[in-house]
């Protein structure tokens, strides 16, 4: 790749964003169609064919329990993306919701809520999610809850900054003078205006949630062991990396590709989703 092409990567409109959107589109398609794409069952074990290399019938080979890697990859895409999406939505609701409501209600509630968020933020999100998973137990819903809580404070800070900026604007003062209640003003007038900032932050959180899900599953704390997520696939296959590298490579490549897709598509995604940002600059 030439130097000028590399410089063009992160900008919207170049080759990079298109590549990123294509990767994300493909991942989304696989997640939606899921197991239907592959004529094998992701859960069926065939112990005689443990760690079998790729062949004409099983394009990506078998894992350490003789399960079809491609089928697990397709099923895992759905689970990994669904968990990350659920966690991101929870982080938006919890972080932005609590943050904006507390801020709208005044100094006392705001101090309490953001004090709690500061406490959560002092812990690295991976460590916090680990602790939460220890407390909640493994499973898909606890995982979404733990990830959502871990990423909520970042969302809250962005929401607060955006809310304060908007709150200083004339239209909020006008609504206040006309006698609108603070929460109603926030809901009806401020929220639509800060939605762009929230979406931008959500696009940053989503790939991090995907990675953290994989790390947690790798640590044995994510989704339940039989559920095929990328992290569970990596965790199971890493011990047999010497004899069956294909079973590790497939989920690792999927994980790298999707985070790369988010990074490449980043600017374009923001431009497309933010209603207020000027286009064509």
């Amino acid at each position: 790749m030439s130097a000028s092409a590399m410089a063009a990567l992160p900008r919207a409109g170049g080759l990079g964003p298109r590549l990123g959107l294509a990767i994300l589109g493909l991942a989304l398609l696989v997640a939606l169609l899921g197991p239907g794409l592959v004529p094998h069952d992701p859960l069926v074990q065939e112990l005689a064919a443990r760690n079998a290399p790729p062949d004409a019938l099983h394009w990506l080979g078998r894992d350490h329990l003789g399960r079809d890697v491609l089928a697990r990859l397709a099923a895992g895409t759905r689970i990994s993306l669904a968990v990350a999406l659920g966690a991101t939505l929870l982080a938006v609701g919890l972080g932005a919701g609590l943050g904006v409501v507390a801020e709208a209600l005044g100094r006392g509630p705001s101090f309490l809520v953001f004090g709690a968020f500061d406490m959560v933020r002092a812990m690295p999100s991976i460590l916090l999610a680990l602790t939460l998973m220890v407390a909640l137990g493994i499973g898909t819903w606890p995982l979404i809850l733990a990830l959502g809580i871990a990423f909520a404070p970042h969302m809250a800070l962005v929401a607060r900054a955006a809310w304060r900026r908007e709150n200083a604007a004339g239209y909020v003062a006008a609504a206040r003078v006309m006698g609108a209640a603070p929460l109603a003003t926030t809901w009806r007038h401020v929220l639509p205006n800060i939605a762009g900032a929230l979406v931008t932050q959500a696009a940053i959180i989503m790939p991090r949630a995907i990675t953290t899900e994989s790390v947690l599953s790798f640590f044995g704390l994510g989704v339940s062991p039989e559920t095929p997520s990328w992290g569970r696939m990596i965790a199971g296959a890493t011990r047999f990396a010497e004899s069956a590298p294909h079973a590790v490579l497939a989920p690792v490549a999927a994980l790298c590709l999707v985070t790369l897709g988010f990074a490449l598509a980043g600017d374009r995604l923001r431009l497309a989703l933010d209603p207020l940002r000027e286009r064509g600059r």
Partner: protein
Amino acid sequence: MNHAFLHNATQAGLALARQALLLAGIAIAVFLLIRIVPGDVVDAMALEGSLDEEAIADLRADLGLDAGALTQFRIWAGRALGGDFGMSLRFDRPVSELILAALPTTLILAVLALSAGLALGVGLATAAVLWPRSPLPALVEALNLWSIALPTFCVGLASILLFSVGLGWLPVIGQWLSPVLILAIDNAGQVVKPLHEDLKEAATASHIRTARAKGLSPARIVLRHLLPNALTTVVALGGMILAGMIGGALTMEVLFGLPGLGTLAFQAISGRDYPVIQAVVLVFAAGVVVVNGLADLAQRALDPRLRR
């Protein structure tokens, strides 16, 4: 002067008190969180071995697990303040001993990765400002994209597959080269872009124009006039990165089998070893709080504008 000093000291004191309060809050939260867990170490042991009802009750009483949560917290917090985190439920050794044994590995990993990453990041950003027409600015973008796009977990696994399994150049377990390099490149990628932007903006300042007009060489301008002013940015980024790297270091330790706090946490989590989990989480949280506090103080010391 004296008044200003008093003001600064008060500000710094307030900042420190806030950090201490945060840490206390985290301690309570971590303790309560771990207490919610359904099933404790005795349950886990009973599943594995053949403990009868009486032995289970005895073990609980021995480990102090039969007391109420509040009593347990009071006892635990009192001792923790004195550096005593109790006994590990699994290893039959004091938790503080396990932590102290694991701490050097984690510290060395973090310090190596941070210094190598800062050196690479600062060096590349400076060189890119000195030679703006070279491919270096593009390299800044590429390195930044690398650290955004590729989580260290991915890179670590890919490097195991490529260099250890595929090419056989490096052992999988117990080597330091891969984890340090992976974390350092990730850190450099986070530092290099904001620093490059900072230096480019600073290069348009009037005192730089004066320096250029009086004939100073570009290298001298960068070293004497630009870099010292960018030091606050470096310190701020360094603090942020060190705090952010903890998650990466934890994963790298487990991936590459280094006996640090991350590996200890990993073992403690799978063994339901609460005292160890609590202590490791607290040590990490304390580390983040201390690093943030130090970065804040260093920034105040370096940048007079922040003292007001």
